């Protein structure tokens, strides 16, 4: 399997409104931060190339609106995602509590093939602020209880852990991809005899 192949990852960012989803993305993609709050309408789309283990990966980042009135856009956005980033604000406990429902919502809408192992990453944002209300321990515990979701504490403003978090996101999503590939080599050629038809994807159908 060649490692030179290009890869493209669809990454969805979810979380309550105002937790800093767009700011994190801007920090990651454009290395910029603005204190001004502007609500995202519907969704924003950004791309960024990163290098993971010598492989060039294009991250197609779908920054969604946190406001409830845009939630109906769900299915379309979640469909075919490679990774989901859940963001909360460490100074606002209710945004942390929402993580559970964001995660459930995503799994229902996106209905990934293997929900238990779907790559999520949790970001606790705004650690640069003084009025912290959700402890790192509490967040970590929750992440562990959800099949060990990786957890990062970030500051979009001061660019703390942002790069690292997105690197991890890309890496975990890629890991899924290669894993799936082992079980699922598509044959170049369909054979027209009946037993090759449909269901069997055990990888035995490329015996020439």
């Amino acid at each position, binding site marked *: 399997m060649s490692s030179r*192949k*290009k*890869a*493209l990852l*669809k990454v969805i960012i979810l979380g309550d409104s105002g937790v800093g989803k*767009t700011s994190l993305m*801007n920090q990651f*993609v*454009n290395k*910029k931060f*603005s204190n001004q709050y*502007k609500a*995202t*309408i*519907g*969704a*924003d*789309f*950004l*791309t960024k*190339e990163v290098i993971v283990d010598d492989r060039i990966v*294009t991250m*197609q980042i*779908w920054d969604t609106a946190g406001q409830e*009135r*845009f*939630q*109906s*856009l*769900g*299915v*379309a*956005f979640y*469909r*075919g*995602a*490679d990774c989901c980033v859940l963001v909360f604000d460490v100074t606002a406990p209710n945004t942390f509590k929402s993580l559970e429902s964001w995660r459930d919502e995503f799994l229902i809408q996106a*209905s990934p*093939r293997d929900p238990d192992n779907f790559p999520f990453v949790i970001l606790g944002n705004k650690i640069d602020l003084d009025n912290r209300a959700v402890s790192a321990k509490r967040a970590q515990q929750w992440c562990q209880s959800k099949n060990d979701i990786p957890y990062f504490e970030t500051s979009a403003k001061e660019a703390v852990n942002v790069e690292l978090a997105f690197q991890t996101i890309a890496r975990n999503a890629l890991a899924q991809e290669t894993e*799936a590939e082992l079980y*699922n080599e*598509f044959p*170049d*050629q*369909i*054979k*027209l*005899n*009946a*037993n090759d*038809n*449909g269901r069997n*994807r055990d990888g035995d159908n490329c015996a020439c």
Partner: protein
Amino acid sequence: MASTSKDVPAVVIQDNPPDDLEPGACHDSILNPTDSFEEFASEMSSSLQERNISLATKSSTISEIQSEIGENSAPMKPTKSSDDLQTKDESISASTSNSNLTEQNGDDTDTEKDDYLQSPELVNKEKHVFILSSAGKPIYSRYGNEDKLAGLCGVIQALVSVVEEQNQDILRSISTNDCKAVFLVKGPLILVAVSKSDESETQLVLQLTYAFNQIVSVLTLTQLNRIFEQRRNYDLRRLLSGAERLIDHLLIFMEKDPAFLLGAVRCLPLPEKARENITNAIQTTCNKIRDLVFAIMLAGNQLITLVRMKKYTLHPSDIHLLFNLVRSSESFKTAESWTPICLPKFDSTGFLHGHVSYISEDCQACLLLLTVQRDAFFPLSQAKHTIADKLRRSNCLVAINDALNRNEELPTTNPLKHIGIPEIRHFMYKCKSTAQLFTSDPISLDKLQDYRLRHKEGGDIMEKKVEKLSDIDYVRNYRKFCSSIHCTSTPAKLIFRSNSCDTILAWVTNGFELYVTFDPLMEKDQAIKAVDRLLKWIKKEEQRIFIMHAPTF
């Protein structure tokens, strides 16, 4: 000014030239008769549900053939398509929110991210084509780097799905002042054309359908559906790598060749005897090979002959894909190839296996032997050499070369000179029942090469006025006549338009379609007389310019 048939004196609809069949028509056709616009008519009229149903793969022609031959005892079961995937998603409740989708934020970060869309690779192109998965992942972009267009693909996917999910409707097109964006959602793919050309929405839909069929031709519909059924996030570029070239060429091909506009196939004009000999050579050599479904000889995007298994005919659109395959693949010139080919109209569920080779180094005719047997390379290779020998002995190679090199002595090389009506500048004739096409100035191989090169670096909108019109320019002019004649709401039978540049007559009957360009300010009755003589000439030469037999093995 355009005027429809009503203004034209009844004299026009004269008796067809003798023999009561229109020029080019014969009782048996190798090709499926087409109505130029059938494809988009069906595409445009379908609702969301119908669309999902229509994509469900049908029973397989290939397995039908196989079971008739008795090779593979068990017939293939119809395969499940991925379309239930779509219906599953539909259950979302509509919300009343004003769903403003795309980019907001007027700050500087936005201008940065849009930079690529303003780059010279993308700006000022006449027509863009984007193909993405229903997850919004880029698969193909005609220009530029599709990786960098991932953001745009996200927007396209969002637009398509909002219309689908919130309004239970299909997004077909968006028009702005000088630009049309046409959308085609087919199975797990979304195809978009963004065009500043004068092509109609339906013509663009047709082109997108062809692009889709080109992908199916590489993968089969079964495979395509199955991939996305299993992994919706699949990056299809991995399976299509190498096939982008086919789509590139197809898009150029469609802009240049009227065959696409009319859903017909151009034939290489040949003396009747020569074509007969070629057909006989193939028939006699291949009639013992039981798995052979089609034997097709072509040259320069023109059909020389097609011999087929009884009961089966080909759709022109499948032949166009074969033309495209041959023209885009230099490697066929140097070696005999064995390649899986799916012909979507014939059977979208499986591959035929093709032996593809050029007849000889001194003749640019290419022979395709398509079979359902996947290890028939050697017998077919043997057959090919036998055929090539026979053709050489019977001087057929010379005849083919003469036609390809447009030997001046052939009446079909410069038909306008032979017809002797100086006012006619150009014409294009399609016989509907056989789906074959003839134009007065067929694009030669060299010219196609030129256009290919020119287009490779360009594709830009050109303001420059050309001095001498080529076949391609005339065909461009026919586009809007073609779409008004086929307009579903108010179809016309005949359009006559005269102005200071030229006079154009477009005429469609049950049997044929005809487009003629005359000198400017031509009178109607004059034009009609000329057309009458033109039809007589076509009738006289029909044995040369069309394939009038439908031989089988």
